[in-house]
């Protein structure tokens, strides 16, 4: 049984896929490069031709997951006309993507806990900061357009809103089914939060 020779890029992708499955099943610490190599049906030395070590591999996995979900969410958000509709859409898109890619997003979240010196390593923190920037910007834009109340502190409200977005990843990482079977209830909570800052539509006399 001759093993198929894959191009370098294809081989790399197949290793990443294998790592995704392995991490999702065994957790970060229990999943070794030997496990990943076995899952990808290659030897460890071949794995090391593509990735320096487990951390390098997992970093690639995380970066590609973040890139994919960011692109997906952005594509959906730009279709919406107003910033508040955009925030609703962002929440729904994150939810949908996670439901469709549960093991990928689990592998993503599992790779986060590798802590750096002070706290988490830089890339998850940067992702959170970029998300906060984007949400704050949309909230401020809604205020400028008169769709959101002036009294709202946009950066503070943004963190509160982000808590609701992030728990989707956390629930998935915890292996829970709770929010995933109740999309309506989840989106209702999102809409309720947005409603607390919306300027009510003027009733035309």
């Amino acid at each position, binding site marked *: 049984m001759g093993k198929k020779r894959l191009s370098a890029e294809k081989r790399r992708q197949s290793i990443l896929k294998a790592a995704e499955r392995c991490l999702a099943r065994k957790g970060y610490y229990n999943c070794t490069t030997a496990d990943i190599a076995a899952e990808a049906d290659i030897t460890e030395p071949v794995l090391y031709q593509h990735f320096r070590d487990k951390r390098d591999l997992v970093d690639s996995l995380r970066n590609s997951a973040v890139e994919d979900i960011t692109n997906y969410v952005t594509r959906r958000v730009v279709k919406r006309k107003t910033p508040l509709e955009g925030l609703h859409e962002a929440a729904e898109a994150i939810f949908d993507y996670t439901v469709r890619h549960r093991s990928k997003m689990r592998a993503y979240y599992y790779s986060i806990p*590798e802590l750096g010196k002070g706290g988490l390593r830089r890339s998850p923190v940067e992702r959170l900061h970029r998300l906060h920037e984007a949400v704050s910007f949309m909230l401020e834009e809604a205020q400028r357009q008169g769709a959101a109340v002036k009294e709202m502190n946009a950066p503070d409200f943004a963190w509160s809103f982000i808590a609701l977005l992030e728990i989707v990843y956390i629930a998935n990482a915890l292996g829970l089914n709770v929010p995933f079977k109740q999309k309506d209830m989840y989106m209702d909570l999102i809409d309720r939060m947005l409603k607390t800052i919306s300027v009510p539509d003027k009733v035309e006399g």
Partner: protein
Amino acid sequence: MAGKYGTRGNRRQQIIDAAIKAFGAKNYDGASVTDIANAAGITKRAIYRYFPTKRELFYAVRNEVYGAIVSNLWSEMPAAKDFNELADALMRNHLRFGLENPEMSRIVVNTISEAATKEFQENIEALLDERAEEVEGLMQTGIEEGTLDPDLNPAFVSWIIVLIFFFLIYMQACEEDWLIPRGEEAASVLMRPFLASLAPRS
């Protein structure tokens, strides 16, 4: 000096305490059993007498940390019955404890990395379930008293609140510029818009 005269229970606890510090500082991967032995002032062999593997020691540490976080939750509760005040107090208790014990928060973030494994499900899920039930009880009262929208599904929302507990720990592990300088007040700021959104629709 506890040392070699320590009772069996004390010695075990002493190892767990040292392991919390070590895992909190260096993660599961980074902290060796030697580090832990040195911190506890005992030999590696003594550790293996209580915990046959590093992994089992980690599980014991995890159970200890989750237990400590949970027992702290209800530590200082206001006499009020209002759901918003109670939920706010829970979050503040939770965040204060995390800020005072950052090594424990880091261990929780560490454990999320294997939370979908069978081992975690078997040992931790019941504990989370109980927390959700406690919050659900508070919500029922809130609904009866008219501070919460009766249209809400308390079982669902209480799980969301348990997940927000995790988010706070995660955010804290990020050593978020926004969160750390505010101290426990950050919990209130984070919860306020969410709690406001649960009020009955006018």
